[in-house]
């Protein structure tokens, strides 16, 4: 029986989300009934669930069939934790139980992230594509329950939220209450037409990003640049600088393209999940960058990591100076984000680097304020702040981000420590 199921799963071709034209053709064709019904003000809940389930299953078929079992086990695990804590929170509220619930919720993710670091690069059997993003969703629910803002949850909506097909593999990260409201209400026809219009535009833009630009940067430019950089070797060379820019643009267009697909498909289902990118390379400073880059992730960290750390530090009066408090919180926040990417020296130093950059950014803003105050008292005009200083900020931020992405890419690890010629 089990053997038969495994064989069957292995025999089905594996379709990665938004991976190839065929995927879009089938997905869009199967979405037509949903779109038509939505147009006439109805949500086909059962049909939508079946279609979603089908596309989730083919993500994990073929050679990666064991991920499907990991996914099922994981969802059962999270369901138990979330609903148990929900039941508990109705009448009680203690920190240890809350912390325990959060710990249990992130435990599978910890296993999955730590296993490759201590087991010679092997992947944990608990892992499956999208585990991080599912964890973000359930942990956010636990925290909102603790805060008392999330009171009622339904099993069916919970499962739909956790296993929301358009975003299951890589986000954007939605919030339960927002999702539930969209899911239980059908947009008006005028609203839905707006969503359709955006959906078409995002799909086309996504194609351009992912299949034209990311292909150009990631395949045509990046592959030969990497080969050349490795052939030249050493600590640093010009081709590695090329790798830096090519990788940075590849990362953006690939992920932004994917995110556009996810948003577009979600809009077709009448669910307005948040956008993930907002022209990040136009950011004039690093704090602004994190408001524009992988937005749903950085906001998640802001709400559920940074704010919590600040809260704990302030409540326990750890530091007298609130600037020190926020600096420590920023660095911890970004370090945790680094660890989340993976337990490797380059992800962790990437996180640390961004944490430090935000601290420096804040320090400069305070310093500027002080200088301007002094200048005002001395009767001088404030420091210049015009389109040229903004342009300078954009250039500096962009270069910093690209350098940090080179670190993030892991290419330096290969160049410095694993360059076998």
């Amino acid at each position, binding site marked *: 029986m089990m053997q038969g199921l495994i064989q069957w799963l292995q025999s089905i071709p594996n379709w990665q989300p938004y991976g190839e034209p065929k995927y879009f053709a089938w997905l869009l064709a199967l979405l037509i009934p949903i779109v038509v019904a939505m147009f006439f003000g109805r949500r086909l809940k059962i049909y939508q669930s079946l279609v979603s389930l089908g596309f989730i299953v083919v993500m994990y078929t073929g050679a990666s069939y064991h991920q499907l079992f990991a996914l099922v086990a994981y969802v059962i695990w999270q369901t138990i934790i979330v609903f148990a804590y929900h039941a508990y929170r109705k009448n009680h509220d203690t920190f240890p139980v809350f912390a325990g619930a959060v710990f249990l919720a992130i435990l599978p993710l910890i296993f999955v992230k730590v296993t490759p670091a201590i087991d010679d690069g092997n992947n944990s059997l608990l892992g499956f594509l999208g585990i991080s993003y599912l964890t973000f969703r359930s942990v956010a629910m636990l925290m909102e329950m603790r805060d008392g803002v999330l009171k009622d949850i339904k099993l069916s909506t919970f499962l739909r939220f956790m296993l929301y097909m358009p975003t299951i593999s890589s986000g954007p990260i939605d919030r339960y209450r927002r999702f539930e409201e969209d899911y239980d209400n059908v947009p008006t026809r005028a609203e839905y*037409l707006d969503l*359709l*219009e955006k959906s*078409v535009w995002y799909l086309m833009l996504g194609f351009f990003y992912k299949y034209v630009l990311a292909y150009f940067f990631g395949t045509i430019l990046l592959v030969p640049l990497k080969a050349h950089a490795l052939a030249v070797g050493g600590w640093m060379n010009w081709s590695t600088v090329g790798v830096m820019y090519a990788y940075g643009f590849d990362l953006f267009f690939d992920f932004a393209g994917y995110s556009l697909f996810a948003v577009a498909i979600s809009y077709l289902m009448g669910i307005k999940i948040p956008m993930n990118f907002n022209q990040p390379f136009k950011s004039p400073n690093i704090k602004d960058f994190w408001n524009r880059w992988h937005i749903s992730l950085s906001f998640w960290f802001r709400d559920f990591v940074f704010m919590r750390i600040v809260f704990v530090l302030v409540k326990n009066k750890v530091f007298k100076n609130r600037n020190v408090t926020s600096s420590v919180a920023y660095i911890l926040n970004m370090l945790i984000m680094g660890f989340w990417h993976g337990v490797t020296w380059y992800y962790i130093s990437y996180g640390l680097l961004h944490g430090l950059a935000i601290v420096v950014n804040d320090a400069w803003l305070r310093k500027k304020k002080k200088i301007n105050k002094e200048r005002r008292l001395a009767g001088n005009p404030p420091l210049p702040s015009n389109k040229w200083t903004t342009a300078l900020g954009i250039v500096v931020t962009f270069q910093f981000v690209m350098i940090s992405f080179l670190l993030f890419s892991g290419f330096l690890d290969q160049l410095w420590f694993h360059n076998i010629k």
Partner: protein
Amino acid sequence: MLKRLALIFGPVVVAAILVLTVMFVGPIDKHKHNLANEEQAAVSLSPTVFRQAYLKNMALSDEDHRFVPFFGSSEWNRMDAFHPAVLARAYHRNYQPFLLGQKGAEALTQYFGMQQIMQNMHHKQAVFFVSPQWFTKADQQSAAFQFYFSKSQALAFLKNQTDTFADRYAAKRLLATYPNVPYRNLVQKVADGQKLSNLDEKYLDFQGQVHANEDAFFSRFDIGTNLKKRVLPKVKELPQPYNAQALDAKAVQLGESQTRNNRFGILDNFFTNRIGSSFPSLKNAQAHFNYTQSAEYSDFQLDLDQLAKTHTNVIFVIPPVNSKWAKYTGLNENMYQASVRKIKHQLTSQGFNNILDLSRRGNEPYFMEDTIHLGWRGWLAFDKGVAPFLEHKQPAPVYHLNNHFISEDWNNFDPINNDVNTFK
């Protein structure tokens, strides 16, 4: 409301129609010959031209201009003034080479490439540059193979195959070198000796049609600039009219002026850029190289099988290595000659008798451009053997294939300690 819907979906519908038109109708001029594109493609050496079928077939089927397939690998990229493409142009030969070969391409890649142009090879001629360096003990580099492999080749192979011994072996090799090959299930069927169903055939026809149209549409965008930048300027350098002695003098003069920074007769910038600082570590680095036993021998037999199937009259060229360089790197000359004997036995015992064996001429000055590739006088020697074969009518060959050349016996046959003629 309808207007809004039309504004949202109208452009999508128009785009979809355009895409479907490309897929099912193809470009309007897809059956036309375009000499400029053919000539450019023939020397472009771009991966697109090498992988895809459209431009190859356009050129090879041109009745007004005779293009001859030159199968090989990296040597075609050594475009000095005496390169076959330059000579053919400069002296208005009645043929032009269509260069099919890239760095890392070996017999298996050539086999699937031949599938694409099968209909244009029947009873025609071809040149096959077979390098002993292909016949390494380690198996065919699958990265290079996968890079040059295309859906179009898979489709052509699946359509052409008739469940012969060679077909089955080719399918097995394809699966082994490219486990996720397109149409894997169908290739597996061929490997297992199963017949493709009618539905399979219909599916292949459908895929083939769509793919051919896409190929016709996209091929023209990546033909490169070799003709203009690397061939035509060199045509002007050559003495007119054709004079063997003047050409040889020119080859010596150019070779002499470009090999001044090393004692191996290697092109200066190759020595600086490609050998450079690794020079000391290369001493005796090739002493263990062995080309005498390799799975490549069976792959090569697939090529011969295909050439025989199309009754192609083909001349094989076997190059030498740069003798001075071989001495430095410790490459064993006996081993090299044994691999040449093995290749030649495989050829002549099956009726492939046109062989230009240059393998012993690696010590002639300005014969080799670098370590293993022909240049200057080497290309002239190539031309001296190949041009008459192509320019004048040749008797039709009679091939008698021996399937035993597709076997572990033959792959592992040791030509150093055994007489190759004993292998039947």
